[in-house]
């Protein structure tokens, strides 16, 4: 069984994407506070999803599917940035302590 070049590229991109999801999860478990964990989730997962999307777009049957995949990635980015901001803001309001920062009164 042989794989064509696009299939190999797709495989590599999807694997790379999976690696970033794994790294993001490692950050979620290992980082010391909620604020640092948000970095791990937003950045690593966005890149992971981006790579997986790119890999799948190469295999997509038509341009409608490619636009669909791009749109899903963009919507996920927008959702991640918004949710990250909301979680951080409510954590600050609740006074959740941050590592390396004097707990100060929020503006």
């Amino acid at each position: 069984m042989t794989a064509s070049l696009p299939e190999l590229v797709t495989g590599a991109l999807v694997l790379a994407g999976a690696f970033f999801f794994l790294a993001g999860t490692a950050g979620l478990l290992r980082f010391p506070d909620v604020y640092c964990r948000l970095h791990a989730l937003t950045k690593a997962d966005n890149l992971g999803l981006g790579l997986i999307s790119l890999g799948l777009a190469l295999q997509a049957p038509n341009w409608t599917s490619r636009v669909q995949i791009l749109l899903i990635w963009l919507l996920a980015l927008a959702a991640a940035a918004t949710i990250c901001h909301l979680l951080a803001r409510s954590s600050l309001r609740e006074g959740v302590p941050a590592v390396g920062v004097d707990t100060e009164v929020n503006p």
Partner: protein
Amino acid sequence: MRRISLVWLLVFALVWIVLAAPRYDAWVAGGIAVLTGVILHTGLGGRQGARITLRGLMGFVPFFLNQSVRGGLDVAFRALHPTRPLDPTFTPYRTGLPEGPSRIFFVNCISLLPGTFSAQFHDRDLRVHLLTDDAEGARKLETLERKVAGLFGVRLEVPEGGTPADSDSSATRNERHG
């Protein structure tokens, strides 16, 4: 009362059509989602126009993709590194972007840049969380701010680097421009 924008109704409907492609029976969920989207968009004051130029887009997209890759690599490295190298802090930042879509876009993009996310913002003043406390943080934000200004074709109203820390000088600059 604000009026529902027909243009945005079409935009949201188009998004749904692309997402749900051939499943026209999905319009029950889609209709609810599209209507909710338009109502929220109108209610939250999303009717201010935004002009994104093709030239601005061509300047922004490569920058954004490059930064996304760096951001992912950076955080993956820190997460998997045995010593977990972090030096987190919060920093204030005052944006010169005018109120409206460009400022909201900027605040969201901060969270996708390497090592930064926006934790709070009120008017012009942002509170940004940095994964590593270094001098680069503010400079990266200024670069992003310039790129966003270019994307939306707006002018920065405060000279770059103005932070609440030097609010006196920022205030005078604001007056001169405003």
